[in-house]
């Protein structure tokens, strides 16, 4: 699942992630595309606080950072 959060400011990207993590089965991933500089530390912190896996960061075709999270429970 991909969540387009381009142009959305903190804390909206992690809010979107929190709303949609249960839309995928345990073990599957959600990717958040977000250009807000706070998304990087906040997605990592959210994974730590909520017990999901912060898989890593890639760059979307338009250069926007894309953060992938695996649902663990």
């Amino acid at each position, binding site marked *: 699942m991909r969540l387009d959060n381009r142009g959305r400011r903190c804390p909206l990207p992690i809010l979107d992630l929190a709303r949609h993590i249960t839309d995928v089965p345990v073990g599957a991933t959600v990717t958040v595309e977000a250009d807000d500089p706070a998304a990087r530390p*906040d997605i990592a912190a959210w994974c730590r606080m909520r017990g999901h896996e912060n898989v890593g960061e890639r760059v979307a075709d338009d250069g926007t950072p894309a953060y992938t999270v695996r649902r663990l429970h």
Partner: protein
Amino acid sequence: MGAYLDAAAGAPLHPLASAALLASLDDGWADPARLYGAGRRARLLLDAARESVAESIGARADEVSFTANGTQALHAAALGTLAGNRRTGGGFVHSAVEHSAVLHVAQAHVAGGGSATSVGVDALGRVDAATFAAAAAAPRVAAAALQAANHEVGTTQPVTEIAAAAPGVPLIVDVTQTVGHAAVPDGWSVLAADARTWGGSTVGVLAVRTGVRWRSPFPEDERESGRVPGVPNLPAIVAAAATLRAVRATQDAEASRLGALVDRIRGTVAATVPDVEVLGDPVDRLPHIVTFSCLYVDGEALLTGLDRRGFAVSSGSSCTSSTLEPSHVLVAMGALTSGNVRVSLHHATTAADVDEFLAVLPGVVAEVRAELGATGL
């Protein structure tokens, strides 16, 4: 109703500071470099203030110069040490959580052809002493900069240990949040302080240890041992010195009092606000600073909500900064940056202020979350 809880940005003027400021506006307006009576009186005030501040920070009077403000003291400390040690090389080592004034020097230094190494911190915001000392002791490092304690989360840094492990490198120590609240650590070569943080008026302190190579980054004149050009702001200097003397007389008692209030904030916030992270070292920290971050909270809305109830605090959340970047301190710690609040206490903070803040905070957080539709997540 409400309270000012942003002492790290500047404590309210101490009553003694206002009195000293007013008195020296009358007595200390003349140029202390002049040889007539009014100038000599100004000179006496300046000399006495310098002696007093030097004693308070553990320096000799001739090692101390006054600057316009804390940022200028940090700039002069770092730029001057880099310039004075240019023959050693162009390396500048600093922690990732230094005050932005130090990071701005690093940027300017790199733009000018030098190199800068940022040493990371752990989740509490502290550098590893061995790692920092090794980076500082590397070849061609002209200077290293490390704060005595962090200005956002309060965590203390192993300054003395690093100074002992890397004795060959001049160590610039930012004590802007420490002076007036805790002991200045041993081991500094060049030191920068800020009177606003101890309840003085706006003036900075630069101290350069005898024998440390330091060259003024400004065109030199005869003022302040050639370290800071131009007529010093004497009334602010006199007020800063008088306040620091008074604050130091009660420093230990105030540290216990404010330290206990911070403990109360740390414990109560963690217990009463859902999905919150209280940051920084709970024990080895400054007595008066505490920071926490709330999940699914817009930092700007939180500050506005608290301000509406009369509470002044600051935030490292990106939405509260002019650059829309989150605090580099929180990012370096790997901490949550959303819904961030820094509370910093001062001489006029009462237990009732803190209790009232703690009573309104959970409701304000809940209100901001409800506005964002962030419930049941």
